[in-house]
């Protein structure tokens, strides 16, 4: 056990040894990938970084705030298409606009969450996702119809560094957010709405904030995805994408930052393992949700936490 002597010390970033070890390992891997000289790994690394940003955001909503939402595909699409339409702006600004557009949509979709709970909210948000998809599929002025919309794509190596750096920024911001009053309010709403209100947490504001922040992340995810693909069509944003993000959250670990990154790595790398047998991927995803929920509801991050406790107490117990 270590001795904490001040509040500053307790609130310091990455105080635990395990957290620091994970952090160093993560940075080492991120730096090693481009030097591997394997283009496939650079592509995978980029995709993991992009996906992890979206998973972090949805985990804030589902894991921390406890609002089960299936609207991810809609926010992704809004982020992606907004980015495509404003790509003449300087890149950081275009990214910001894409995130904000999704955040505004997030607030609108969040309103039902003030009334609906659990599966009912999930259904309502699912409806939003489908509506966005249908809109894109039918409004060719938005989606470019059958030809789709082209997005300017920088060289892959550049994209890799850009997206890994962005992931680092988003992960750090998330760590800071959830350890602040706002993050605590999110978790308070998840654990007991009645108690949250009794201590003065405004449910409306907190839920809408969670929706706004998480959709901002997902919007940025969508924008980066558009940039990564270089080309957009509505088919990209169907229900499969919802499943992928949901699998990443569940397998990685609810309400966990490292878990979000593990989960993103899982959904990107698992299809690569199967290669030709692509039909097996949804089976694997569905199966992994069942396995995780039955055997380790904390996901990969929860398993890691348990392993750590077991290791600390070994050989006692």
């Amino acid at each position, binding site marked *: 056990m270590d001795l904490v002597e001040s509040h500053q010390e307790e609130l310091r970033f990455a105080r635990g040894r395990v957290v620091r070890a994970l952090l160093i390992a993560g940075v080492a891997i991120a730096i090693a990938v481009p030097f591997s000289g394997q283009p496939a790994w650079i592509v995978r690394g980029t995709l993991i970084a992009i996906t992890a940003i979206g998973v972090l955001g949805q985990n804030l909503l589902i894991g921390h705030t406890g609002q089960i939402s299936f609207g991810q595909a809609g926010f992704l699409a809004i982020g992606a298409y907004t980015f495509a339409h404003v790509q003449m702006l300087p890149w950081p600004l275009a990214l910001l606009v894409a995130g904000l557009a999704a955040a505004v949509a997030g607030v609108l979709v969040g309103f039902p969450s003030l009334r609906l709970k659990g599966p009912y909210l999930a259904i309502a948000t699912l409806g939003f996702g489908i509506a966005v998809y249908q809109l894109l599929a039918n409004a060719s002025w938005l989606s470019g119809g059958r030809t789709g919309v082209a997005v300017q794509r920088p060289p892959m190596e550049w994209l890799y560094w850009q997206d890994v750096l962005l992931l680092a920024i988003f992960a750090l*911001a998330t760590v800071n957010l959830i350890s602040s*009053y706002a993050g605590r309010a999110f978790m*308070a709403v998840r654990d007991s709405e009645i108690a*949250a209100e*009794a201590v003065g*947490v405004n449910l409306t504001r907190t839920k809408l904030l969670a929706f706004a922040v998480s959709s901002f992340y997902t919007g940025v995810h969508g924008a980066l995805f558009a940039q990564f693909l270089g080309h957009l069509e509505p088919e990209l944003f169907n229900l499969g994408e919802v499943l992928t993000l949901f699998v990443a959250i569940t397998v990685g670990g609810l*309400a966990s930052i490292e878990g979000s990154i593990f989960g993103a790595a899982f959904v990107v790398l698992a299809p690569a393992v199967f290669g030709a047998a692509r039909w097996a991927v949804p089976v694997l995803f569905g199966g992994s949700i069942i396995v995780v929920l039955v055997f380790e509801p904390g996901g990969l991050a929860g398993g890691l936490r348990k392993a750590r406790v077991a290791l600390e107490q070994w050989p006692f117990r």
Partner: protein
Amino acid sequence: MADLPRPLLTVEGLSLAFGGIRALRGVGFSLAEGETLAVIGPNGSGKTSLFNCISGAYTPGAGSITFQGKSLLGLSPDRVARRGIARTFQNLRLFLGLPVIDNLLLGRHLHFRKNLAAAFFRLRGEEIRHREKCEELIEFLDLEPYRNVRVADCAYGVQKRVELARALALEPRLLLLDEPASGLTGEEKEEVAYWLHEMRGRFGLTLLFVEHDLRFASRLAPRMIALDRGEKIAEGTPAEVQRQPAVARAYLGDAA
């Protein structure tokens, strides 16, 4: 109450109905600054309904609730909390997934200056000030060993204390306690009675509590009201209230 200073809380003619069930029928009382008042009554007499009306969880059908000269009617629970009223719950409502310290910090939530930019950039001056306040409560309620333990992993008696500490963290003017002694062992009840007594002195609190353990209630409250089937059937000192035939009937049935 001519001898007492201005009333902090006044409840008048409060009525609440759930469909055909009339949970409260014209209940009224007033509570002076610094006073302790117990609400007693058998199960289903409307004690918790009364609390839920005051704290904003239910909207009464008729009557008025005035706190510090302003009406509380129609306010949501978080606004009532902001006005300076904290509460505990009969069956504990804690943030089970969070450690004890975070539960207390949530008790400080309404005192935080809300600044999202500071949250994203990890500016923690505000946080540290509130943590210091929480440490005082942890020390006061002997919660040191559980500081970083998830509340779900704490024993019931400890959870009960955490809920009390969280309510105190709000620094309320009025504290509503719903059965502070229920589910506790004899020894734990003694402790709670001691803490409540200490708290009143230390934080200058006004206390309104529901209890059906008459002995516990009479030890803490110089004055009590008794409810039965939603109606106020008695008011006065513990001895006066317990002498009322209506109270004995409510507790023991018509044979008494």
